[in-house]
C-alpha cells in the first residue's frame, strides 16, 4: 500500500487536534508554544502534501516561507517568555492575571 493524499491529510488533522489540545490544556507558556508549533506544522504538512499531489509548486513555496515564519515567531515568543520569567519568576500563563477586572 502506498501513502496517498488522504493519509497525509489525516496525519495533519491529527497534528492539528493534538496541537489544539496542548494549547487548551497546558498552563506552561513553553508547552503552549509547543502546541502552537504542532498546529503550524499541521498546516505546512497539508500545503506540501497538496503540492505533491498535483496542486502545483505554490504549496511548497508556502511551506518554505512557513518554516521561516514559524522560526521567527518562536524566537520572539521565547524572548518574551524569558522576559516574563525574569519579571514573575514563573512561566505559568495562568498566573499572568494581574489585569483581571
Amino acid at each position: 500500500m502506498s501513502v496517498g493524499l488522504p493519509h497525509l491529510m489525516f496525519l495533519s488533522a491529527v497534528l492539528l487536534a493534538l496541537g489544539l489540545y496542548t494549547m487548551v490544556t497546558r498552563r506552561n507558556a513553553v508547552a503552549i508554544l509547543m502546541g502552537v508549533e504542532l498546529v503550524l506544522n499541521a498546516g505546512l504538512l497539508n500545503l506540501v502534501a497538496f503540492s505533491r499531489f498535483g496542486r502545483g509548486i505554490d504549496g511548497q513555496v508556502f511551506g518554505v516561507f512557513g518554516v521561516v515564519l514559524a522560526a521567527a515567531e518562536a524566537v520572539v515568543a521565547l524572548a518574551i517568555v524569558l522576559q516574563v520569567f525574569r519579571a514573575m519568576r514563573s512561566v505559568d500563563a495562568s498566573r499572568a492575571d494581574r489585569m483581571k477586572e
Partner: protein
Amino acid sequence: MGTNLWSILPELVLAGTLVLVLAADLLLRGRPDRPGALTLMATLGLLGAGISLATLPGTGAFFDGLVVGDPLGRFFRGLFLVAGAMGIWFGLLSEEVPRTRFGEFVVLILAATMGTCLLVQSRNLLMIAVSLELISLPSYALAGFRRGDRLSSEAALKYVLYGAASTGLMLYGMSLLYGLAGTLDLPSLAPALGRELASGAPPVRLGLAMGGLFTLAGLAYKVSAVPFHAWAPDVYQGAPTPVTAFLSVGPKAAGVAAMIRFLSEGFGSSATGQPFFPWPVVIGLIAMATMTVGNLAALAQDNVKRLLAWSSIAHAGYLLVGVSVGTPEAIRAVALYAPVYLLMNLGAFLAVLAVRHRTGAETMAAYRGLGTRSPWIAVSLTVFLFSLTGLPPLAGFIGKFYLFAAALEVGRPFFLVLALVGVLNSVISLYYYARLVRAMFLDRGAGLPSVAAPRPVAWLLLVLAVPTLVLGLFWSPLAALASWAAGLS
C-alpha cells in the same frame, strides 16, 4: 521588474529608513538629543514614503499578482503612514518608552507600519500570511517594551500566545483552501472554488467552511473581533500607552482592509452574485457580537486605558458592519470611518498619556475635576469621546452615519437588524463615555495635582481635535476621497 519595484516604492523607502534609523541609533549613542534626532529621521522617512505613494504610477497587479496597486490600497497605505508617524511621536512624548532604547521603538513601529502597508495590497494567501507576521512580530515586542514592568510583560505574553495560535489556525485554513482550489491567488480562488463546489461532494463544503473560517479567524484576531478578542483588553492596558494607541489604529484598520479584499476577491461578493460561503452573515454576526460585548464590558471599567481598549473592540465591530455589507457604498463607509477613527482614538489615547505623565495613574479618579485642573486636555478629550460615541456635529457621527446608511441601503432584513444593533450600541456607549466626561467636569478634583499639558502634547491634541470637529461639519473632501478608494467615482 522595474514597474514591479516602483509599485512598492513607499515600502522600500520605509525599509531604507528603518536601516538608517538602526545605524543612526548606534552612531548617536550617548547623545542626549538621540530620541529627537531619530524621530526626525523616521518622520522624514514616512514623509518620503507618503510622497512616493502620491506619485506612484499606474494600477494593476504586480509581482505575478502577489500585490495589487489600486485606490483602496493606496488610501489605506496613506492612513497607515500617518498612524506610524503618530505612534513614533507619541513615544517621544511619553515617559513609558525608555530613552535609551528609543531607537528600537522607532524601528519596530516602522517595521509594523511596513507590514500594514503590504497587507492591504496583498492579493495572495502567502503574501497575506507573511504581511500579517510582519505586523505581528514587532507588535509582540512593542507590547512588552517595558522590560522590568510586570504588566507589560504579561501583555506581551498574552499577545504572543493568542497571536501564535491564531497564526497557526490561519495557516491550516489557508492550506485547506489551497488544497481545494489549487491556487493561492485570490482572484483565481473564487472561480476554482466555484468549480469544486459545483461537483457537489460533501467534503468540499466541509473543507471550504473550515478553510474559510480558520483563515478568517487569523484576520479577526488582528482586528480583535469577538470571539477572538480575549487578548485585547489586557494587551491594550499593559502595553505602553503609545504602543496601545498605535496597535488600536494601524494594525486594526489593516486587518479590516485585508478582510474586505480576502472576502470579496477570494469568495465572491454579494454585489457580484452569490458568494460561495455565507460570509456576509458570518461577519455580520461577528460584528454584532463584537459591538455588543465591547460596549457592555466597557460599562464596568474603572481604568480609563482599559475602557478605551474595550471601546476600540466595539469600534472594530462598527467597521465590520461595513465589511459584512460589502457593497461599494459600504467599502466607502469603511474608508471614511477608518481615518475618523484614527483621529479620535489616537486623540483619546494621547489625553490618557498626558494624564498618566503627570499623575502616574490611569484610573477614573485621576480624571476628577480635570476640567479645572487642565482645561486643554479635558476639552479635547471630551471632543474625542463624544466623537467616538457618534454625536453630531463631530466626525464620528458622519462615519457612523455612512456605515449604517450603507447597511440600510441594501434593504435586506438581516442588514436592517445589523444597523439597528449598531445604533443601539452607540446609545450604550454614550453612558460610559459620558461617565468619564462627568468625572472631568462635574466632580471636584480637590487635592489632585494640576496636570497642565506639556506644550508639544497640547499642540498634538489640537492637531487631532480640529479635524475631528471640522470633518463633522465639512466632510465632503474626505467622502470624495473615500469614494475614490472604494471605486465609486
